[in-house]
């Protein structure tokens, strides 16, 4: 059992921001991350052995160095937090051994994961997320394929497409579900955040130079192939993203990166007992938070994309403010100093709001996205469940995660519904003609990360 002032789960910009501010105020802090290096998704460091990998992001390197230099922060990489129990009590495991932390305050900053809707053929080899393709080139220097198509929505698609182009990967096209004219409203909303606009325009310019077309209002309807995918079928979408199948077209491709934005990783907060609320524009279920990012559970804070998708700059600002709020709460910071120190981060957050809101509106998931799903399309990959099995359970009265799970084994596999539920819950809402929020979140059952039975057995004697 270890009792630091603050335990931070997640070493992305949000978690590093929180740890830095808490430690600067004199608190003792443990920062755990399951990756081999700090940085999170955006500032992910290349693996040392990967010579072809891209150079790390300068701001990420800066944050990492600050954290490493801080004497108040104990960094534990390669360590997974797998649940939050009453206390809060947090077991953290690495290589078969477990330490249970009982901090005075807990910051949950686990980031987000990509949203992938099922469609016919989506389980064929060659279909992956843009994030997975990015990791291949960014940290390992490996080409995901020879003819790559990216499809989905959001600024992450052109970002990854241009990273692939710069790494020498052949990109055939980018399919964006929303119409082009929506995207052209962004400069108007983003004039207070020119660096973000510049970044986006840079990606577009890279793609233009490489003659990679961006096809707007287009979506995937099917992927075909044998041992690996060979063809992508796509079609024009209406305002609800429903495909017009009479104008279906096929392109040859060996790789398809599908990503329709991000889903916050809320399961740690959920297992802590934090109240959730449904915020469609932030990726779905998120913990309810106050202005300083405290959740409904005493002493538990949640920041960054794991508490509502808003990007790296928001993530860091939220983390910084939460770190300061904790310092004030634990008596390490005077209220006046708190106000002064949080102000620049608050200003930054406010400045990001307009472009964030505009992006949320453009990229919000529309219900037509699920129209190409067939009866035998798998919706739960772990348990290999086709849509028709789930649909028939719905016909027999199941209408939420708990009831569908026991009726069909949906979400009973290794991923525990983390990957299938964001899409399946929307399909159920559509089928039952209710709001997604009525269908509810999946449940969070520890361990939220793989832990062996032996590791569980060897846990701290003092654990309650």
């Amino acid at each position, binding site marked *: 059992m270890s009792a630091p002032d603050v335990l931070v789960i997640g070493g992305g910009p949000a978690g590093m921001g929180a740890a830095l501010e808490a430690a600067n105020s004199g608190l003792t802090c443990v920062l755990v991350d399951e990756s081999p290096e700090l940085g999170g998704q955006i500032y992910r460091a290349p693996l040392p052995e990967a010579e072809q990998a891209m150079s790390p992001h300068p701001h990420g390197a800066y944050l990492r160095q600050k954290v490493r230099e801080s004497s108040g922060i104990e960094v534990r990489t390669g360590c997974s937090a797998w*649940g939050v*129990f*009453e206390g809060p*009590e947090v*077991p953290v495991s690495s290589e078969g051994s477990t330490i*249970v932390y009982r901090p005075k305050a807990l910051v949950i900053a686990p980031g987000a994961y990509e949203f992938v809707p099922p469609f016919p053929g989506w389980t064929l080899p060659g279909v992956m997320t843009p994030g997975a393709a990015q990791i291949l080139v960014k940290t390992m220097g490996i080409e995901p394929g020879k003819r790559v198509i990216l499809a989905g929505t959001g600024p992450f698609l052109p970002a990854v497409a241009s990273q692939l182009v710069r790494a020498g990967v052949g990109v055939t096209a980018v399919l964006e579900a929303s119409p082009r004219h929506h995207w052209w409203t962004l400069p108007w909303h983003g004039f207070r955040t020119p660096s973000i606009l510049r970044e986006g325009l840079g990606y577009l310019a890279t793609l233009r130079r490489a003659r990679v077309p961006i096809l707007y209002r287009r979506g995937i309807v099917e992927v075909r192939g044998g041992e690996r995918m060979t063809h992508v079928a796509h079609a024009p979408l209406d305002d609800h993203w429903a495909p017009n199948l009479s104008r279906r077209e096929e392109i040859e491709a060996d790789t398809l990166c599908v990503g329709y934005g991000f889903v916050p990783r809320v399961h740690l907060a959920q297992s802590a*007992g934090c109240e959730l609320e449904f915020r469609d524009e932030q990726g779905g279920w998120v913990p309810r938070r106050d202005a300083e990012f405290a959740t409904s559970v005493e002493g538990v804070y949640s920041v960054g994309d794991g508490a509502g998708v808003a990007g790296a700059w928001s993530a860091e600002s939220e983390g910084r403010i939460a770190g300061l709020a904790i310092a004030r709460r634990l008596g390490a910071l005077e209220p006046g100093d708190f106000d002064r120190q949080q102000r620049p981060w608050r200003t930054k957050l406010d400045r990001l709001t307009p472009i964030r809101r505009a992006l949320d509106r453009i990229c919000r998931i529309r219900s037509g996205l699920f129209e190409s799903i067939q009866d035998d399309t798998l919706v739960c990959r772990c348990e290999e469940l086709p849509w028709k099995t789930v649909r028939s*359970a719905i016909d*027999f*009265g*199941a*209408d*939420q995660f*708990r*009831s569908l*799970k*026991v*009726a069909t*084994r949906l979400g009973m596999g*290794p991923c*525990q519904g983390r990957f299938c539920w964001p899409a399946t819950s929307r399909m159920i809402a559509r089928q039952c003609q209710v709001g997604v929020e009525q269908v509810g979140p999946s*449940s969070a*059952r*520890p*361990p939220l990360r*793989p*832990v*062996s*039975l*032996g590791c*569980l*057995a060897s*846990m*701290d004697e003092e*654990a*309650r």
Partner: protein
Amino acid sequence: MLVDTVVVGGGVIGCAVADALARAGRKVHLLDATLPGRATSASAGGLWAVGESIGLGCGVILHAQENPDAEQAGPMPLPRVFMDFLLAGNRQFPRLGPELKERTGIDVEVESGTGLLYLLYEDNHVQHARQLQDWLGQESDLMVTWSPEEVRDHDPCLTDELAGGVFFPGDNQVNPMLLAEAWKRSAILAGAEFHPCRVERIERAGKSFLLHSGSERWESPELVIAAGAWSGDLAQMVGASLPVFPVRGQIVCTETLSRTLRSNLSTPDCYVLQKSHGEVIVGSTTERSDFGTQVRPGDLRDLARGACRAVPGLASLAVKRTWAGLRPGTPDEFPVLGPDPDIENLYYATGGFRTGIVAAPITAELVACSILGTTPSFPQEPFLARRFRDAPGPEASQRDSSSSSRTESDSVA
């Protein structure tokens, strides 16, 4: 909406009762909220008619928890009529499995031939085993006593450090969730209607019951309370008092593994069984509790230790999830089945406690018969709610349940 019968609670018991009534021609409405803690979703699905009746499975764990000082305490059998009741339930599964499959297409995974093996770690456990055999009768074929070598021959993946074992060849397993789902679908196919909703309030309108959930209402002359651990709340809504309380069970489930365990295992620390999907289940704490469904790291650790002690090779297996369910407990560990002693047309199908799954078929039969006015294949007397009427209040009776309801000769310890 006016209907013949309303069943509140769609766990294994409510679904079984709804199916029996619907197939007898009643117009049944089944109302279920699928609350967190639903025992059927949490259950291990052991069909341990003999094992649980003589105090193994969850029984030893409960007994150790309630008597922390009694180092030597062994299994505590329940009165013999209880075992006969569970055996009557268990006997139906070999027929029930294929029937449900035929009616609904769902395979409820009734397993036969695995049996339940109680591991004896120490010499005093061997002593307990002798007493159990005495209790069952020396000639009984429900139980076989094994030497350490016989245990290891039966299943080589078990620990070496054994003083022996006791095998119950008739105690097998089923998938409890699919069992409830199949009964539910069978009921719906026979004309029942299912409503996912939570009953919030019940009024009396003359002789009828008027149930409210949000803006929806059902009116019925006949009400069956099958709301598991929440049954006491439901009874209270109609002005009855029912001493049913939640008994929490925390449980651990691993990733899938090719068929490894020959039998279901019971030990003084935990029980271990492998389900037909390959997952290994390690259960379960048995705690008088509130309605919370949290798990505690210390309890999970103790279960994991118990499993690794029994089957050392399990240590490398990844844990997939842990959870807690709420058993519908009663002061005397007997279920509550049949009519309320005072309120006409109010029926109970609850109190399944740690054996609600194995008891479900016979439970449904007893409750349906009492509603339909037919004669069941097993006497209903011991399970009637009126036994609580003369007993002290629920608080007092809960506390001394373990002593008052059992006679001296029932105790093995």
